[in-house]
Each structure stands twice: as C-alpha cells, then as structure tokens.
C-alpha cells in the first residue's frame, strides 16, 4: 500500500486544433483526472471514442501525441515526476519502466525485420539484459502467451503470423524488459471475438505471472471486467466514476456508468434467442412478373430478437429477392411475413409508417445507396425528421450522436458522399438505418464491395451495435467468413429453396448436404495447392451424394 507505482493528480491535457479557415484553438481534452496504481494491479480506462482514454494512457509515459500538451497536474512514476521531465529522463523511462501495447499490432511492427529482433530491441537498448538473456526471456514469453513453436516463432516476419499472434508478440515485446507498468491501448479491439478471447487470457496470465501493473484501455466494459482491479469511467475527457471493478460492474453510482453496464450486459448472446421472433416468414413463394417459375420457393424462417440470421447462397439463389419480399418491394404470391407479432401487408403501400420505421435496409453498394447531392447530415437526419419529427438543433445533435455510434466524428456532418471512403460510406448507411431506431435491419451484401480490412471493421461495428441496441439483422451474403463472424442462425438458399437452416454451429458442422459443402469448400484458403485439393475433393463427393460421416473436415479460415 505504501508502494504507489503510479500517481496521476489533477491531470490536464490540451491539444491544438486547426479548424479550417479559423485561427488555431486550444482545446482541453483531459481535465482534472487523478488516479493511483499500486504494483501488480490493473486499472481499466473505459469510455467512448474521444473520452481521452488513450491520451491518459500515453501520459503515463510522459508522452503526448502530436500537438498534445500536458499542461497541468502531475504524473509520478515510482516517485519520479514525468510531466515536464527532460526528454533524456523520459527516454530512460519509456521502453524500460513503462511499455506500451498499441491497438494495431500490424502497424506497430517493422515488416522487414524478424519478430525476435523487434521484441528484444528495447530491452537491449536500455541495457536491461544481455542478448542471450533477452532471447531466452522472449522465448519464455512466447510460450506463456501460447504462441506456436515458441522456440522458432521469433524467426518469422510479421506478415507470417496472424493478427492475434502479432498482438501477443507485441505483448511479449512490452513485457520483455521487465517493466513496472504496461499500457495496453485497446489491444484486442481490432481482433475478432475468438482471437480476442485467446489474447485476453494470455495477457491476463502474463500480468499475473510477472506481477506488473497495467493500464488497460478499452471501450468494451466486458473486456475490462475480465482483467482490471480498478476501473475508471471517462467521458469527454473527464472522470465519471472511479472504483473497484466489482463496484463499477455490480453497483455503479453514476447514470452514465449504469448505462454502460446495462448496454454491455445486453450483449450476452445467450439471453436473446428466447422470446417472440422479430420476424417470421411463412411459406413464402414469390416471382417476378413475367416469370413462369418462382424465384423463392416455400421459404420458412424466423429471426429471434437481437440475433442475426445469415441468408447464404450464390448469386441467383433468391437471397436478394427474399429481402425484397420482406421489405414489400415484391409482394409474395403466397405465404406471409409476420413482423413483431403482426402480419405485414405484402405490398409496400399498405404498410404503416411504424412498420417502415422498424424495418430498415442497408445496401451492398453504399455509393448508390446515398443521394450524391445530400450531405451526410441530411442523409442521416432525414429519417429522424421523417419518423420522429426532430428538427433543427435537436436533429443535429441526434445526427452527431449517430455519427459517434458509427465511429465517425462530428466533422463528417457537412460532407457529401463523394468525400467519403468506401468504409465510411457504408458506415453512414448504417447510421441512416439506425436513425430510424429499427427492430430489424436487412443487410444486403453490405461488405462484399469493400476490401477485407474495411469489411471487417463494418462487421465489427454491426456486431457492436447489435449488442448495444439489441437490433436484429438479416445478413444476406455469399461470404462464409462473414457468416462465421456475425451469424447466430444460418439459412442456406439454393435455387430459391431453403436447403439448410439452423443455428450456426449446426449448419457449419458436418454432415453437409451437397450444396452447403460446395459453399464451404469454395472459401479460398491461404495455402498453395488449395485449389487442386478442393477441386479433387469436390469431384470425389459431388455431384453424387456425399457419404454420411465421410464429410471432409471444415477448412479453417478466420
């Protein structure tokens, strides 16, 4: 108790902003934050983006990002004042006493050098160990962090390991010099859920084993609850609540914290599948005018609240037609669509404003899904005005709130779609759908026009929003990898018929029907000879019946 590792008192941090056409302004981004951290303890900093979490985390190293100045208060590490300390002192502290794990490990490694060299670099630089000792420690860390082939792992280059492994390697890098304090800046945010689990447990174990103190920065309360002793909740650069993990999670005092906790609790996927389905499709057949044959044939589906139904199939399988039936653009000739307990009028015209509001759609091509002559503010603001009558300032505030939800800033409000990147466009489309406070969003191939990294970000956003808002999705796609990430239930369509339908684990586990197998087999793997293997395997099984139990094991893709 007497041994206080880190003491931050009344910290005030300012940044200079350069608004276009105006004089530079100084804005305060962190104000009056104090915290104390003992040896071997973990404090979690939690808050939305822009809450100042990372800035505080970095200040523990006496560091401010470009343009950021630590203007007031004090930061003492092991009794040594870091604010306004000369850079010689700071250099000695950084990388030896305090180390940093960044959010994007992929961007944190030099792609042209082997991992081991980078992991031990800071340790050698500060003369904390000799080279053989450092290598030995690194290998030990690799083993503790569950990295494969820990002896030789360091010989690989960054591009030869996965994102999750890279994040662990970065953790190893941070722990290697035996620091007193490690700052984890959203280390698992860029990872998918299963990988996050592994990295999280590895980090937790490493912190415990080495008795280091840590500042763990995240926006995910569920994550921080696993790892922290104390939690500080931040909002807009100010401290909202500071207490033990147990107190914050189980007995939050502030309303904002309560909101955070309840939003996070709502995410537990086990809670949702019960309850009245949001959408039920019963015996639906539909065809386009002038066609002799139905495009979708006798489809029965359900979407439980707060879950995602993935509708999978190749192009022409009737996925998008099904979406048109649900939205009312193509009235089915038999069957019915039951939404939120009542039967929807088959045609769009017969639907009430409330039906329309609660059922939203996101399109594949964000480019053409937004009017090029409307600003982001109008695009997102129109549903608010149309459904809820928000006007003027109220509307603008709501738009900014929505922009924040899709992780875009207020400055986007006056931009036109042409001034956005592909991923940003799709985010704006998501915000437009969210603006209507829908119960169900139909996502029609929302990621297939995006590059994989951006697509991943969009999928993650959709998942986060589902957790927070409890909205259900119908996720139409041909991309099995995306399905694995988002789906709770899966429906496989083939030539307009439902060939397979059930929970994710069930649908993606053998034995498969012919078509599902083909679909799963067709996901390319990063492996030389995959194409030949897959083709010969398919030839053996298809088109003849796949023998029961002899179905090949599923290809691992993540």
């Amino acid at each position, binding site marked *: 108790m007497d041994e206080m590792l880190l003491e931050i008192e009344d910290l005030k941090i300012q940044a200079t902003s350069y608004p276009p056409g105006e004089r530079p302004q100084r804005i305060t981004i962190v104000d009056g934050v104090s915290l104390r951290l003992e040896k071997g303890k973990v404090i979690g900093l939690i808050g939305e983006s822009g809450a100042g979490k990372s800035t505080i985390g970095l200040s523990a190293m006496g560091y401010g990002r470009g343009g950021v100045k630590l203007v007031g208060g004090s930061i003492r590490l092991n009794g040594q004042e870091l604010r306004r300390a000369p850079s010689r002192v700071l250099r000695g502290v950084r990388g030896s006493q305090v180390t940093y794990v960044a959010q994007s490990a992929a961007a944190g490694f030099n792609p042209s050098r082997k991992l081991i060299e980078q992991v031990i670099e800071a340790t050698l630089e500060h003369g904390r160990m000799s080279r053989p000792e450092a290598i030995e420690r690194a290998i030990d860390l690799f083993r503790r962090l569950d990295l494969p082939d820990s002896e030789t792992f360091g010989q690989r280059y960054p591009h030869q390991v996965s994102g999750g492994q890279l994040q662990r390697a970065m953790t190893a890098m941070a722990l290697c010099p035996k620091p007193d304090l490690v700052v984890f800046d959203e280390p698992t945010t860029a990872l998918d859920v299963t990988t996050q689990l592994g990295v999280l447990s590895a980090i937790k174990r490493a912190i415990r084993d080495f008795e280091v103190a840590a500042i763990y920065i995240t926006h995910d309360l569920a994550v921080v609850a696993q790892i922290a002793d104390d939690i500080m909740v931040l909002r807009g650069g100010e401290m909202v609540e500071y207490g033990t993990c147990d107190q914050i999670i189980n007995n939050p005092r502030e309303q904002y914290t309560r909101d955070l906790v309840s939003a996070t609790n709502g995410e537990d996927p086990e809670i949702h599948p019960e309850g009245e389905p949001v959408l039920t499709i019963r015996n639906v057949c539909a065809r386009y005018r002038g066609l002799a044959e139905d495009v979708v044939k006798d489809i029965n589906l359900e979407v439980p609240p707060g879950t995602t139904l993935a509708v999978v199939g190749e192009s022409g399988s009737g996925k998008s037609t099904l979406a048109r039936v649900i*939205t*009312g*653009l193509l009235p089915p000739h038999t069957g019915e669509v039951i939404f939120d307990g009542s039967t929807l009028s088959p045609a*769009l015209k017969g*639907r009430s*404003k409330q039906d*329309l*509001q609660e059922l*939203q*759609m996101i*399109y594949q*091509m964000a480019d*053409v*899904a*937004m*009017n*090029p*002559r*409307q600003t982001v503010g109008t695009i997102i603001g*129109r*549903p608010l005005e*149309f*459904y809820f009558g928000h006007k003027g300032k109220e509307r603008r505030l709501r738009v900014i709130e929505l922009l924040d939800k899709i992780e875009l800033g207020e400055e986007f409000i006056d931009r036109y779609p042409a001034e956005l990147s592909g991923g940003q466009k799709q985010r704006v489309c998501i915000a*437009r759908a969210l603006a*209507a406070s829908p119960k169900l969003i139909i996502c029609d191939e929302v990621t297939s026009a995006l590059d994989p990294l951006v697509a991943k970000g969009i999928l993650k956003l959709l998942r986060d929003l589902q957790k927070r808002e409890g909205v259900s999705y119908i996720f139409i796609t041909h991309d099995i990898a995306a399905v694995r990430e988002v789906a709770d239930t899966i429906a496989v369509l083939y030539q307009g018929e439902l060939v397979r339908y059930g929970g994710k684990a069930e649908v993606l586990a053998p034995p498969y029907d012919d078509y599902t197998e083909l679909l799963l087999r067709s996901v390319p793997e990063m492996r030389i000879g995959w194409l030949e293997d897959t083709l010969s395997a398919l030839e053996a099984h298809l088109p003849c019946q796949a023998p029961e139990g002899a179905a090949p094991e599923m290809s691992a893709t993540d």
Partner: protein
Amino acid sequence: MRRTPLPTLIGLVVAAAFFLTALLAPLIAPYGMSEIVGDVWEPASAAHWLGTDNIGRDLLSRLIFGGRTTIFVALVATAVAFAVGAAFGLFAAVVGGWVDLLLSRFVDLVMSIPSLIFALVVLSVMPVTTPVLIMVIGLLESTRMYRLSRAVAVDLAVMDFVEAARLRGEGLRWVIVREILPNALSPLIAEMGMRFIFVVLFISTLSFLGIGIQPPNADWGGIVKENKDGIVYGIPAALLPAVAIAALAISVNLVADWILERTTSLKGGRNG
C-alpha cells in the same frame, strides 16, 4: 475549378451584354420604340448609329426594345417548357407503368407534328397576345424537356437511394423533388440553354410570318419582316436583327455547351 475556356468566356460576355441591354432598354435606347425620328431608311449617322427603318424610326432603339421583347418572351416560354416538361417527365419516370406509357405516347403524338405548323394552326384560331404566345411556345417546347427529363430520371429512379427513400415511406413529392431532381438538374439546365435558343428562333420565325409579336411592338423577327423589302435596294436594316439573333444564339450555345461538358459524367443525352 478548372479555368473557363475562352469560347465560353466570349459566350458569357456576349450573352450577358444582351441580357443587360434587354433589362435596361429604356435607359440605353436613344429614342422611343415607335417614335418616328427621321426619313425612311436613312443611312447610319451620328444621330442614328444604325440608321432608320422602313417608316423612319431609329433602328438601334428598335433593336434594343425588340431584343427586350424577344428575350423576355423566350425566357418565360423556356421557364414554362422546363417547369411543365420536367415536372411531367420526372413524374412519369418515378410513377412508371401506364401513367408513363400514356404521357409518353401523348408527347410522341405532339412531337410527330412539326411544331411550326402546330403553332400556326393554334395561333390562327386564338387571339395572338403575348401570354398566349408564351404558352403555345412553352408547351410545344416542353415535349423536348419531358423526353430528356424522363430519360435522365428513369436511370435515377432505379438507384438504391431512391429505393431507400421509398422504403422509408417518403411520398412522391419528396422522391421527385429531393432525391431525383437535384441529380437530374445539370443535364436539364444545359438543355434549358439549348431550349432557350430554339425558343428565340421559334418566336422570331413566328413574328417574321406575322403571327408572333404584333406591331407596333417590335421583336427581332418582326423587324426583319418590316425591313425585308429594303434588301432589294441594298439597305442592310433587315440584316441587323438577324445578326442579333445569330449572335445571341451562338453565345448562349457556347455557354450551354460548357455546362453540358461539365456534366457529361451524369447520364442523359440531348435531343431536339
């Protein structure tokens, strides 16, 4: 923005000069419009820069006032053509189905009759006043506006953002005015420039034939008609309004071309 090309600049300057002259006609013109101030067909002099006309009125003043009439009538008629044509064109494209079919076939029917003949027939049974003239020309030209705006809007109406607005439950008005019109506007504005020129030619033709603007009011076509006999005697009075018509047509054309060029990325060709 890129620099405006020289022909466009010339067009802009000339057209602006014409419009300013029309606007400020009573201030600029040295004499009254129907004031007889000299002999018949006097040659150009310090008092009458362009000479006098067939009954001794100052030709410059007459041209200035005539231009005012021509440009005013042409502007209003173009506005009518745009409003009627674009409104029905966008409506037909968005609603589709038999409404579209009916409107389009009707427009085809009107377009199949040469518009000059059509106007001659209509104006021969109706009193020739300026409002009637404007309506007849405007409605005839609106068929072209209809064709273009419908063609542009049909492409736009199937875009996802229009579908998104429909799924939101937006009414026809919002879809047409807020979603489609702003995106169709560029080619339509360029087409409006073109239509303006055609209307100028149209009204001049009608006046020349004697069923346009009625004397003693002047317009360029009418001035040509009044002075056409002088050509036989080597009097250039009839050629001057013709030159004015040509200069206006070419200058507006240069500007319209530039607008069209800047918007070639958007769909929609021109016709007419």
